[in-house]
């Protein structure tokens, strides 16, 4: 069945950008989706050795207890693998809801938007700037 197939293969894309991993959540998160994301990010960290992980929630509609814990787990997992995480884009309404529910992302760095998150993750040695190729050089 096409619809079920679409659901079963649906995943949040993990983007490789300036030596960082960027996860931009633009859908209503489900438990299955966030669990799959954990596995995907773990794999990408091992494969790419990024300088940081940015998770942007500006397109998410809600965060409840399970989803909050899953995102925190994701950040802690990245940290254990030597990668800093910044979560960005929480709307004021979502932030208030989380605080009142007693759910916290206190162990995780946060930023107002993805732009700030990427700046925070910059190692500052220019290593994450796009590399320009000299004539004749092939950059992979």
């Amino acid at each position, binding site marked *: *069945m*096409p*619809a*079920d197939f*679409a*659901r079963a293969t649906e995943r949040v894309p993990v983007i490789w950008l300036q030596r960082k991993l960027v996860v931009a959540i*633009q*859908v*209503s998160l*489900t*438990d*299955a989706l966030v669990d799959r994301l954990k596995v995907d990010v773990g794999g990408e960290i091992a494969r790419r050795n990024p300088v940081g992980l940015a998770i942007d929630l500006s*397109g998410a*509609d*809600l*965060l*409840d*207890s*399970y*989803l909050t*814990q899953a995102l925190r787990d994701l950040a802690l997992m990245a940290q254990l693998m030597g990668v800093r995480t910044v979560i960005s884009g929480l*709307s*004021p*309404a*979502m932030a*208030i*809801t989380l605080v*009142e*529910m*007693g*759910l916290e992302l206190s162990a995780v760095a946060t930023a107002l938007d993805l732009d700030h998150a990427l700046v925070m993750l910059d190692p500052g040695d220019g290593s994450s700037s796009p590399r320009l190729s000299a004539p004749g050089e092939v950059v992979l």
Partner: protein
Amino acid sequence: MKIADPLLAILQRHVGDFAAAPILNVSRERVGWTTGALARERVGTFLRFVELGLKVYVDDLTQRARCVAELETLLRGERAPAPAEAVAAVELSIASEDEVLDARMRARRMLAALGFSGVDEVKALTVVSELTRNILKYAGRGTLKLSAARDGSGCVVGVLIVATDSGPGIANLEEIMSGRYRSKTGMGRGLLGTKAIVDEFSITSEPGKGTRVSVLKRFGVRR
């Protein structure tokens, strides 16, 4: 198709000519709807795909909800939505993650129709998410009822959300609700969090019989 498709006409009105056709075509493709009428049980899934498409073009949540409501009216062959109908009580079966997503979408539309916005809307949606997860995770199946909450004079003041299941029940309910107990699965956190963001909360549970959680969420006074 340009003239004959009333679905396209609705979408064009809300997102313009440029975006309407792609949204419709992609949603049809994803739900596997090629010819003829869309099967009734596919309507919810189809509308969810449409909503995903709308999200790209329409920032306003209320407008998105209105567009989806119009499409749903057409697809389900009901007559034009009167305000009273838009806020009619619904009872939803919760037995899969797909139905959880459906419930969230129905709730979003109903909340918009009732006059929810901002923080109150996010809180009510979060409650729907918590309660439907509990049903799925601990009982496997159950129902979620959404209805308008009215004051003595019949004015809508908020929403009533009732989650019922016939699952194993919660043996240590008192301990959980007192905050002394934290389960590995996060059940305590979810229920206590829910209680903290609603106006009225009641839970009854009998081991072996099932659980019923009922909440009232009011919306703030709108300027």
